[in-house]
C-alpha cells in the first residue's frame, strides 16, 4: 500500500496521462463502433437474412484473440494508436450491432402495426417509435462494448498506444505488484465510471443525449487537433522497452538532443513494449530511436551465427555491422556500463571468506546456497557454462522467480544469487557483486539504435547522442535504477540530475 502511495505521488502526472490515453482510445473506438453498428442494424432491419450474415461475421471477428488481431494489423497499419483503435472497433461492433438489431426487431408488433396504420414515414417511425423503444437494448449493447473496450485497451500498451496497460505490463515485467494493481484497479474503475455514464446518458432524452455526445466528440477532437497544431516542426520519437532503465536512457537522449537543438521536440514513449515490437516500430518508422543492448542484437535481432564476444568492443562492432548489412540501421557507440549476468553474495558471506572474484568461490563452493533464475540455471550462458568455466559445483541450488530470489537472499535463506549487473536490488540489499575474472558472461552494453535513413537526415542528433558514448559506469547505472524502480523517483528527473552532475547538461 505504501508503495502504491509512493508511486501515485511520484508518477501521478504520467498516470493521469495514461488514464487520458486510455479514455481517449476507448471513447474514440466506442464512437466509431457505434457509428458503424447502429446504422448497419437500422439498414439491415428489414432484411433478416442479410442481418444474420452480418451477425455471423461480427461474431467471427469477435473470436479472434486480441493479440492475434494486433499481430495481423501491425504489418498493415503499423504500430501505435491506429491499429489499437481498429482492433477495439472490431471487437465492439458485435455487441452493439446485435443489441441494436434485436432491439429494433423485437418491438411489439401491435405498436409496429399502429405506426404503420397511422401513416408514419419510415424515418418518423424510426425516430419516434423504434429507436426510443430499442434504446434500452442499444444502451446495454454499448455498455457491454465499452467494458470490453476498456479491458482490451490495456493490450494497446503492447503496441505502443499507451494507456493503463502500460502499468499492467510493466508490473508483470518487473514483478512489481504495486504497478500491476494501479493499472488494473484504474482500468476497472474506468469501466465502472463509464458504465454509470452510459446509463445516465441512456436516461436522457434523444436530443440531450445527442448534445452530450456531440460535446464529447468536439472535446476529444479539439484536444487531439490542438496537440497536433502545437507540435513544433521537427519531432523525434524515442521509445524504450519496459522498465526503469530504458526510461532513464531515453530521457537522457531527450535532454541532450533538446539542449543542443531547441527547434527539435523529442517525444518519449517509455514502456513502449518488448524487443520485437520496438524493433518493428523502428523499421516501420513509428519511432525514430530506441536504446538496444549489443548482446540482444546478436542474440535476437540479427540473423547468422555471430554471437557475443567476451570483449565488449568486439561484440558492439559485430552487432553494428550486422544491423547495417541486414537492416540498414545505424547503431551508435555504446555507453560504458555493462548490463549482463552477475553473481552476487551477501556481504557477510563475502566478508567471512574474503570473496571478491567469482574464482574465489572455488574455495567455498560447498558452502554456497544459491538461488537462481530458472533461465540462468538452464542456459549454457548461465550456470552450466559458469560451472565449466570456473570448475566448481555449488552446495545447494534452488531455482526461483527473479524477484523472489532477491527476497530470499535478503532474508538470508540463500547466500548467492544470479542477477543483472544494473539490478537496483543489488544496491538495495547491499549485495557484493563478484568480478567475472575469467570473462565468462558476455557483455551487454546499451546504445542508441536508429535507421540509416534517419541517421543521415539527422547528423546533429547523432552528434548529441554520441556524447554519451563511453559514459555512465555500471555502478552509476545501478544507482539510477535504484532511484527509479525502488525509490520511485521520476525517470526524467533522475536522468536530468545525473547529466547535470556529469556536466553533460547545463543547469537551467
Amino acid at each position: 500500500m505504501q508503495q502504491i502511495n509512493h508511486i501515485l505521488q511520484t508518477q501521478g502526472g504520467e498516470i493521469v496521462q495514461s488514464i487520458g490515453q486510455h479514455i481517449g482510445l476507448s471513447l474514440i473506438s466506442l464512437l466509431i463502433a457505434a457509428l458503424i453498428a447502429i446504422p448497419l442494424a437500422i439498414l439491415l432491419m428489414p432484411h433478416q437474412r442479410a442481418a444474420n450474415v452480418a451477425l455471423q461475421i461480427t461474431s467471427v471477428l469477435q473470436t479472434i484473440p486480441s493479440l492475434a488481431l494486433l499481430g495481423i494489423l501491425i504489418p498493415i497499419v503499423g504500430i501505435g494508436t491506429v491499429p489499437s483503435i481498429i482492433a477495439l472497433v472490431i471487437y465492439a461492433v458485435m455487441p452493439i450491432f446485435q443489441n441494436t438489431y434485436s432491439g429494433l426487431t423485437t418491438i411489439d408488433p401491435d405498436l409496429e402495426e399502429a405506426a404503420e396504420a397511422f401513416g408514419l414515414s419510415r424515418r418518423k417511425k424510426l425516430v419516434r417509435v423504434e429507436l426510443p423503444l430499442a434504446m434500452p437494448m442499444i444502451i446495454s449493447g454499448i455498455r457491454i462494448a465499452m467494458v470490453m473496450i476498456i479491458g482490451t485497451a490495456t493490450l494497446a500498451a503492447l503496441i505502443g498506444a499507451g494507456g493503463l496497460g502500460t502499468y499492467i505490463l510493466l508490473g508483470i515485467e518487473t514483478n512489481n505488484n504495486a504497478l500491476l494493481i494501479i493499472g488494473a484497479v484504474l482500468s476497472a474503475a474506468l469501466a465502472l465510471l463509464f458504465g454509470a455514464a452510459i446509463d445516465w446518458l441512456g436516461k436522457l432524452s434523444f436530443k440531450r443525449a445527442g448534445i452530450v455526445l456531440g460535446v464529447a466528440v468536439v472535446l476529444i477532437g479539439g484536444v487531439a487537433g490542438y496537440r497536433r497544431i502545437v507540435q513544433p516542426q521537427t519531432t523525434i520519437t524515442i521509445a524504450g522497452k519496459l522498465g526503469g532503465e530504458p526510461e532513464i536512457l531515453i530521457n537522457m537522449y531527450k535532454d541532450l538532443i533538446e539542449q543542443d537543438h531547441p527547434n527539435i521536440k523529442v517525444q518519449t514513449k517509455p514502456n513502449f513494449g518488448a524487443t520485437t515490437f520496438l524493433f518493428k516500430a523502428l523499421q516501420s518508422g513509428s519511432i525514430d530511436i530506441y536504446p538496444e543492448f549489443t548482446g540482444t542484437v546478436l542474440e535476437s535481432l540479427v540473423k547468422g551465427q555471430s554471437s557475443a564476444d567476451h570483449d565488449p568492443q568486439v561484440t558492439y562492432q559485430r552487432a553494428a555491422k550486422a544491423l547495417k548489412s541486414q537492416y540498414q540501421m545505424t547503431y551508435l557507440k555504446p555507453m560504458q556500463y555493462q548490463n549482463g549476468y552477475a553473481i552476487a553474495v551477501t556481504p557477510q558471506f563475502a566478508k567471512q571468506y574474503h570473496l571478491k572474484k567469482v574464482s574465489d568461490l572455488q574455495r567455498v563452493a560447498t558452502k554456497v546456497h544459491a538461488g537462481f533464475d530458472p533461465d540462468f540455471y538452464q542456459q549454457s550462458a548461465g550456470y552450466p557454462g559458469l560451472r565449466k568455466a570456473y570448475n566448481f559445483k555449488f552446495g545447494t541450488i534452488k531455482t526461483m522467480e527473479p524477484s523472489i530470489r532477491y527476497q530470499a537472499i535478503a532474508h538470508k535463506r540463500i547466500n548467492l544469487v544470479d542477477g543483472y549487473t544494473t539490478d537496483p536490488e543489488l544496491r538495495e540489499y547491499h549485495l557484493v557483486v563478484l568480478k567475472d575474472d575469467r570473462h565468462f558472461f558476455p557483455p551487454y552494453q546499451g546504445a542508441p539504435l536508429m535507421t540509416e535513413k534517419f541517421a543521415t537526415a539527422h547528423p546533429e542528433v547523432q552528434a548529441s547522442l554520441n556524447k554519451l558514448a563511453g559514459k555512465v559506469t555500471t555502478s552509476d547505472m545501478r544507482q539510477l535504477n535504484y532511484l527509479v524502480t525502488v525509490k520511485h523517483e521520476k525517470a526524467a528527473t533522475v536522468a536530468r540530475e545525473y547529466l547535470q552532475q556529469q556536466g553533460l547538461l547545463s543547469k537551467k
Partner: protein
Amino acid sequence: MITFEHVQKQYADKLALDDLNLTIPTGEFFVLVGPSGSGKTTTLKMINRLIEPTAGIIKVDDRPLQDYDLRAMRLRMGYVLQNIALFPNLNIQENIAIQPESLGWSRKRRLERARALLAQVGLDPDQYATKLPHELSGGEQQRVGIVRALATKPNVVLMDEPFSALDPLSRKQLQDLVLRLHQELQMTFVFVTHDMGEALRLGQTIAVMRNGHIQQIGTGEEIMRHPANDFVRGFFENQKTPRAATVQSLLAQGYGEVTTAPATLTATVTVGALAQALQTQTTVVVATAQDHRALTTADLLGYLAAKEATSRATD
C-alpha cells in the same frame, strides 16, 4: 362511401375472404360481427391497406384504394387497435398528436387539439396530457386510443375489437362514448367485434360474418327479427345480452312447466315480448321445437334476478 367488390383474400392454407361485396355509406356506424376466423378483421384491415386483397376492388368514394397515396390516405384514417397500442415512450398528448405531427401541424396546434380531445372524452388535460401511458388504467388508455384515431378529424375511423380487453364497466362507458362521438362528429365508423350485444348496441348497420362470407347485413332490428339463417340465429342466442335475450334463454335455464295447452308465443321472441304478454295474462304458453311450456311472471322475475346477479358479479 366504402365499397368492396368481389374481394377475395387467399392465404397459403386458407381462404379468408370469398367474394365479399359490401357498401358502407358515408357517416354510418358500421359493425362487422362474427366469431374468430370469420374474416371480419381481415375486412377491416383492407380498408387502410394493412392487408391487401388477393382479388377484387375496394373503393373509397368511388376511387380504388390503389389510386390514393398510401401514407396520405392512412394519415386521414383513424385506427383503434384491440391492444390499444399507445406508444409507451411518448406521453399522452404526444400519442394523440402523432398523426398531426406527421402532417406537419405546428406544436401549438397539436397540443391544443390533444387537449381538446382529452377534454371531450372526460380526461382532464391538465392532469393527463403529460402522463405516460402506463400510468393510466386500461379504460383510460383506450379513451386515449380512441381520441388518437380522431386527432386529424379523419373521414373514416377503423376500430378493431377495441373493447374486448376491457372490463364490462369500462366497456359500457366506452360504448356510450363512441356512440356519442359518432353523433357529434359525423364520421364513418367501421367497428369490428365478436360480441353480438356490442354490435346491436352500436351498429346502425351490422354485417354478420362467418368463414369469409357475409351471412346477413341489416339494422340490428332486422337481423334480430329476421335472422337470415340458423347461423345468425344461433349467433344471437349464444350471446346473452339484455336486448337480445329471447325466451329460449329463459327456458334453457329450466323455467317453465311442460304443458299441452295451445301456445300463444314462439320461444324465439325476446324476453321483452314475453314481459308484454305477461301484463295481460298470468300464464303464457310458448312453443319450442319439442313441446309447449307455460311461463309465469314469477319465472320471468326469477330469470331477471339471476341475470342481474351474474352481471353484477362480472362487473
